[in-house]
């Protein structure tokens, strides 16, 4: 077995001199080369080896071939990974399109059945109409508030970039992504600015995380001097409404009416809708 590996090595170098320097029949010598390439040799072992490389061109050539092949193996494996990702890309996109088609069909079928059930069962309809009414009012009144610039720009810091990305998704009404990015941003920047918390809370509301939205809005409402205090009251009212807590929603709306700011008229209208 050893003679065979030695023979292979001699064939490729065409030179017998190397066996005098490094005995390639021995695994230990192969590992010496491998450890050198992997940066695991130190001290005198490293010095001795480097001297040998300089002295024996065959060894130098063997090392070059070894390093070159390791890189090729890695490149080849990377290409295999890339092919896997290409397939996943196709699958995920195609699946998404198919799912979207299926979802639309399902919605259509569900709409037909839903209508039949509602028509056939007035009692059932009445039982749940209060919840539906709140949802309808919420949908009619919920709109993402925005006061930040829509200009594209390059963020200066890592957490600045996270916030900008969160804002991007917020403006696209992709609240689920916005929530995730705001949460990442808060992890990186524990001194959460109130304005960011406000947009995070609205994102939570838009994404259907009503409890989380209420929790964050309540924190903001502790400071009546907060620059978006009135806006926070408005979204807190919507959140309470969505949660089925009409009394709290009305209380928030009445505070807005008392302030008599930009949301006063809307608040009066919403209050009358709830009642």
């Amino acid at each position, binding site marked *: 077995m050893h003679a065979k*590996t030695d023979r*292979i*090595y001699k*064939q*490729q*170098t065409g030179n017998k001199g190397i066996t005098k320097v490094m005995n*390639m029949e021995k*695994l230990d010598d*192969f*590992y010496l080369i491998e450890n050198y390439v992997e940066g695991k040799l130190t001290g005198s072992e490293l010095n001795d080896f480097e001297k040998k490389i300089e002295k024996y061109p065959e060894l130098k050539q*063997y090392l070059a*071939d*070894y390093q070159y*092949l*390791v890189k*090729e*193996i*890695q*490149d*080849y*494996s*990377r*290409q295999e*990974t*890339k092919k*896997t*990702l*290409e397939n*996943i*890309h196709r*699958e*995920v996109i195609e699946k998404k399109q198919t799912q979207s088609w299926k979802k639309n069909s399902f919605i259509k079928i569900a709409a037909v059945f839903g209508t039949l059930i509602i028509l056939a069962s007035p009692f059932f309809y009445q039982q749940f109409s209060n919840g539906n009414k709140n949802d309808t009012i919420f949908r009619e009144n919920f709109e993402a508030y925005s006061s930040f610039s829509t200009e*594209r*720009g*390059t963020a200066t810091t*890592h957490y600045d*970039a*996270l916030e*900008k*990305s969160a804002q*991007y*998704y917020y403006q696209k009404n*992709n609240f689920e*992504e916005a929530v*995730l*990015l705001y949460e*990442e941003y808060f*992890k*990186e920047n524990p001194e959460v600015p109130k304005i960011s918390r406000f947009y995070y809370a609205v994102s939570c509301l838009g994404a259907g995380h009503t409890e989380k939205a209420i929790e964050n809005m309540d924190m903001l409402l502790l400071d009546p001097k907060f620059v978006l205090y009135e806006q926070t009251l408005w979204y807190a009212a919507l959140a309470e409404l969505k949660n089925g807590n009409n009394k709290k929603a009305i209380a928030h709306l009445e505070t807005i009416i008392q302030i008599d700011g930009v949301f006063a008229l809307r608040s009066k209208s919403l209050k009358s809708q709830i009642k």
Partner: protein
Amino acid sequence: MKVIYLEKDIIEDLESLDSMRNNRAFKYLYKRHYAMAISIIIKNNGYEEDAKEVFQDALIALYENIKNRKFRKDSSIKTYLYSMIRNIWLNALKKNRIINEGEQFEEKYSQITDNDSFDHDDVKSFLLKKLLDKIGTNCKKILQYYYYHQMSMSDIMQNMGFSNEHSAKTQKYKCMQKLIAFINSKPAIKESLK
């Protein structure tokens, strides 16, 4: 009930040699974060179509860093991917001297690699596959496990069913010797791979 796919599970799946587990993690990351790649690129003078290449490169970097144990397990995958996507994209722009104030962005990332080098990559990939096929499936596997997947000899021994670590080491050595011998017996292939 919806099963929660925790970050540690994603990392374990990517560490695994099971391609099904790898795929599960990649699919999840694709669904979860591809939109973020599009957003970063659009915000930095790119187009939606550029996102695919950049996102895949970022996923490969994550995958390799997890394999190399360079990825800190307490780091967030999302934050890591965010930084990688941004760096890869901005470096691609810089490399092509596209970032100049007031200069219009004209090239797409997909067009950055010129056609000649793309063709060369295809040829190289074909030759590499042929070369690795020559040394046999097991040899190919053991070399990929060690040099790409960064597996320890003990893990290779268990995964490939060697009776002991020494046998696995000997086999790896023989496979590398075969590869070196083969490449030196075919100088034309060696030249083409450069």
